[in-house]
Structures are given as C-alpha cells and as structure tokens.
C-alpha cells in the first residue's frame, strides 16, 4: 500500500506535473483565466490521463519499443476524441465552455510523459492511480493559478462554476470586489506567468522549510 501512497503523493505534490515537472504549460497558461476554467480543463485532462495510462499499461505487452511513442500518442489522442465527442453530446453546456480546449490535451506532454515514464513499465492498477493522481495534481495547480488570476483580474472567484458542476454549486461563485476594479494584466498572458512563478516560489519555500531536497530531476524537453 505504501507504494500507492508514494504514487499519490508524487502526483499531487512532490512531482506535480505543473509545479515540479513543468509540463503542460500550454493549457496551463491558456486555460487559467478563471478558477472554473482551470478546474474544467484539469478534470478533463485527469480523465484522459487515467484512462490512457490504464490502456497503455494493459496493452504494454504488445507495444514494441521502437513504435511506442506513436502508439502512446494514438491512444492519448483517441481518448481525447472520445471525451470530446461524449461531452459534446451529453454535457453540452460544459462543452461550450471547454470545447475549444479539449483537443489541446493531445498537445499536452504530461499524459505522454506519464505514459513513457510510468505506464509503459508498470501494471494496470498502479498506472491508473498514477494517471489519476498526476491529473488531480494538474487540476489543483490549474485551479489555484486560475483562482489567483481571477481574483486579481476580475474580482470574482469560481464565476460560472454552476455551468461546470451543476446548479447545486452556485454557492461557490463569489464576488470579491466590484467589477471593473480588477488588474486586467492578471487575466492577460503575463498574469499567467506571474501567478505561475509565485506558485513555484511558494512550493519551493514549503519544500525547503520541510527539509526536503529540491528535486533537480530532468527538465521536460517538450514545452507544449
């Protein structure tokens, strides 16, 4: 069981996809103009990562080393398309908010990274847990960056969350201060980099305080 504990901890904090591995920067920057957008994008990515990791682990015996990368991409892209079509059909309101960004998941290197590093070598269940934890870690990072940018930029928090999660979640929608008082830069691209930088600094401070060695693992080669 300790193994699963490590996998979950890795995905959520120690080796967080955004804050430690610095992967998936494209959706991270593009989709975090509000906490709700970050949450939605994160959840869709988490679903794709869990299912693609599961499939890749299950089929890993048939995938030869030489063609593994195209096969991984094929599997991830197929999962993305399945999510895209399913959401369009049965979660149409949500699709109108996120639809444009679902295909972007294919170009996110985090799912591919996990496929290569983890699912290609490990059994089905740990791979599934790894995909899910990495996905949830990604969701948490995106939601936090989104919340920072949204509060500063437009003075709201979780605006339109009921569109994403259903009308029962209307209580989450907060207005912190009046509209038109926000610092516009926060929702523009520079705000994304600033929020991301602050968050990275925070993580580092916490890690240093808790006496953890700063991971100096390999930096991702693809920056999509």
């Amino acid at each position, binding site marked *: 069981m300790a193994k699963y504990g490590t996998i979950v901890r890795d995905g959520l904090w120690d080796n967080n996809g955004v804050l430690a591995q610095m992967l998936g920067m494209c959706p991270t920057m593009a989709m975090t103009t509000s906490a709700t957008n970050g949450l939605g994008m994160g959840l869709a990515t988490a679903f794709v990562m869990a299912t693609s990791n599961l499939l890749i682990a299950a089929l890993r015996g048939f*995938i*030869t080393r030489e063609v593994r990368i*195209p096969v991984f991409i*094929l599997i991830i892209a*197929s999962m993305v*398309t399945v999510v895209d079509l399913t959401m369009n*059909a049965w979660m*149409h309101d949500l699709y*109108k908010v996120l639809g444009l960004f679902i295909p972007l998941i294919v170009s996110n290197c985090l799912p591919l990274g996990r496929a290569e590093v983890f699912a290609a070598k490990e059994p089905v269940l740990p791979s599934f847990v790894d995909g899910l934890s990495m996905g949830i870690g990604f969701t948490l990072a995106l939601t936090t960056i989104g919340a920072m940018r949204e509060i500063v930029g437009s003075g709201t928090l979780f605006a339109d969350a009921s569109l994403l999660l259903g009308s029962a979640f209307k209580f989450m929608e907060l207005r912190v201060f009046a509209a038109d008082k926000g610092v516009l830069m926060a*929702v523009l691209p520079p705000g994304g980099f600033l929020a991301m930088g602050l968050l990275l600094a925070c993580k580092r401070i916490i890690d240093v305080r808790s006496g953890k060695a700063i991971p100096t693992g390999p930096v991702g080669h693809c920056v999509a």
Partner: protein
Amino acid sequence: MKQRTIIHGVVLASFCLGFGILLAATKDFTAEEISLRQVEDLQNSLTQVIPPGLHDNSPVKDAITLKGDDGKDVVVYRATKAGKLTGVAYEVRGQGYGGEIRLIMGLDADGKILGVRALQHKETPGLGDKIDVAKSDWITRFTGLGLGSPPKDAWRVKKDGGQFDQFSGATITPRGVVAAIRGGLEFFAAHKAELLEVR
C-alpha cells in the same frame, strides 16, 4: 533485421485499426445527439434575434442559402407569420482584435434590426468581450436601427466620425462589430427581393 522492421509496422497498424474502430463507434454513437444539440444552439441564438411573437413557423427549418458579396454561402433563416415573411436572421463576420467575430443578426421585413448577438469571439477578457450580451448591454443598442437611420456615414465608431461608442480601452472590437453589422444591412438591401420572396 528486415523481419523485425515489419513487426513494428504490423504493431502500429493494428493499434491504428483498433483505435480507429473505437473512434468510429464513438462518433456513430454520439452523432445523433450532437446534431440535436447543434440545432438547439441555433434555435437559442435565433430566439435572441427574432422575437418569438413575430413568427409561427420554425426559422431553423425555413432556411435558404444565398451567395454573399465575398462569394461565401450565407444561410438565411426566415421567420413567417400566417404565410407572410416577418423577419430574417443570418450570420455576419467581423474582424476583431483577437481574430474573427461571428455575430448573428435578425432583421424585420423592412430591414430594421431586431437584434444582434455575438456568437463566437476571441476578444480580450474585460475589454473587447463587452460585445457579449452577458457582459454588457452594448450590443443591444443596434436594435431598431437600419441602413437609413442613422445615415450610412454614421455607421462607424465615434473615433472614426460615426455615432457608435467604442468602449474604453477597446476600439478595434467595436469597429469590427459595427462594420460587420453595416455589411449585414447592405447584404439585406442587395438581396431584399430574394430574401422576402415567399415560397
């Protein structure tokens, strides 16, 4: 060596085949539902630009296709009441700051605007996105206007000598929208006979 290479090809091909089948099945399974949703979306945006009291038909189903000035097809949805044409709605496109802005506009039989709504745009949040009716009522000011009122020269933003307010910090977006609407009105004027013809 040669045989090994073939194996990789076979592996890749069978994965492609397998997932191709999965995708085809998903598409087949969702196609009907998706087309229903698209009709609903269209219906919703049409209701916003043609008041429901104006027609007793279903404009979504009463659509004709005309050639626009740029050679592209324009699908026109027609509202009729008791066999008489009461309004038309079609999509117009303008150039905004962040790319193309798609608008739908509804006009009555005299060519007066019943309503305009932005369907899709990529304008800057907090600035240009005020063309969205959810963010600001700016777009509703076009209701009731036509090609003669205000005169053609006034169909510009104030900065260009026209009569429409730009919003603070964004001129390009309203300029694109005003130009698109003016274009839509000219399209109506040019094709009035075809548009109003009752079949």
